[in-house]
C-alpha cells in the first residue's frame, strides 16, 4: 500500500476543516470543523507511526492523547458556546463583535448589540 493514500486523505480532510472554520457562522459548526482538522492530523500520525514501525508507538500514543485533548476541547468549547447563547440568544461568530476594535464606520452595529451583564459580573466576582 502506498503511503500517499493516507497522506492525501488527511490533507483533503484538513482543507475541508479549514474551509469550515473560516466559512461557517454557527459556533457549533466551527467546533465540528475543528474536529475534522484534528482527525486529519491523527490520520497522519497513525500513518507515519505504522510506516516507521516505531518501537515505542509514539505516533499512536500521541493520537490517543490528541483524541483526549479534543474531547476536553469540545466539552469546554460547548460550555462557552452555551454561555454565549444564554447571554446573547445567538451564537453567530461574526455577530459577536463586542471585543472588536471599533472602527469609525462600523461602530454603530457594535453598539446596538445587547449588553452582556452576567458574564462581566461573573468575571468581576472572580
Amino acid at each position: 500500500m502506498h503511503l500517499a493514500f493516507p497522506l492525501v486523505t488527511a490533507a483533503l480532510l484538513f482543507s475541508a476543516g479549514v474551509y469550515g472554520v473560516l466559512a461557517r457562522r454557527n459556533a457549533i459548526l466551527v467546533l465540528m470543523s475543528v474536529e475534522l482538522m484534528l482527525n486529519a492530523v491523527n490520520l497522519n500520525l497513525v500513518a507515519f507511526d505504522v510506516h516507521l514501525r516505531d518501537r515505542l508507538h509514539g505516533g499512536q500514543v500521541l493520537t490517543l492523547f490528541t483524541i483526549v485533548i479534543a474531547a476536553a476541547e469540545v466539552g469546554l468549547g460547548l460550555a462557552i458556546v452555551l454561555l454565549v447563547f444564554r447571554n446573547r440568544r445567538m451564537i453567530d461568530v461574526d455577530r459577536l463583535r463586542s471585543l472588536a476594535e471599533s472602527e469609525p464606520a462600523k461602530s454603530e452595529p457594535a453598539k446596538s448589540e445587547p449588553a452582556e451583564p452576567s458574564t462581566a459580573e461573573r468575571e468581576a466576582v472572580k
Partner: protein
Amino acid sequence: MTGRDVVFALLGVVAVGAGLLVVTTRQLVHAALWLVVSFGALAGCYLVLTAEFVAWVQVLIYVGAVVVLLLFGIMLTRAPVGPSEGLDSGNRWAALAVAAGTAALLVTVLVMGFRWTRLNDARHCPPDASSCTAQANGSAEHLGASVFRTWVLPFEVLSVLLLAALVGAIVLSRTDLPTRKDR
C-alpha cells in the same frame, strides 16, 4: 493496486466526502450526522493501517461521546431543525480560496515527497524477525504497554488536564453561582 489500496481509497473517499458535507450542508443536525460517517470511515482507515486500538478509541470517543455532545449543543442552542439559510458567513469565497490553496499546497508537497513510498509496515518485516512483527502492530496489548511504560508521565499530565477541563466546564455552565448583586 492491492486489495488494501482499494479498501483504503474507498474509506478515504467516504471520509473526505462526508467531511465536505459537514462543512457545506444547510441543516445543522445533518452536519453532526455526517460527522459520524466521516469519523466512522476514519476508524476504518485506522483498521486498514493496522492501528486497531486507535480505531476502537476513535469509535468510542468521537462517534460515541463528541458527536453526542455536539448534538446536545445543537439542541440546547435551539437551532432550527429544518434547512436554514445563513449558516455560512460573508467571507465564504475567501474561505474557499484559502481552503483550496491549503489543499493544493499540502497535496502537492505530500505527493512529491511520498509518491513512490510504500507503506513499510509489519508485512515487510523479514520472515525470521518475529519481534519486528510483534512490535509493529497497534493492538491494545502493545499500545497499552507503551502508554504505561514509556509515556506514563504525559498520560498522568493528561489526566490532570481532563480534570481541569471538567471543573472548568462545570464552573462555566453553572447558573447558581453568586453574582455581585447577591452579595
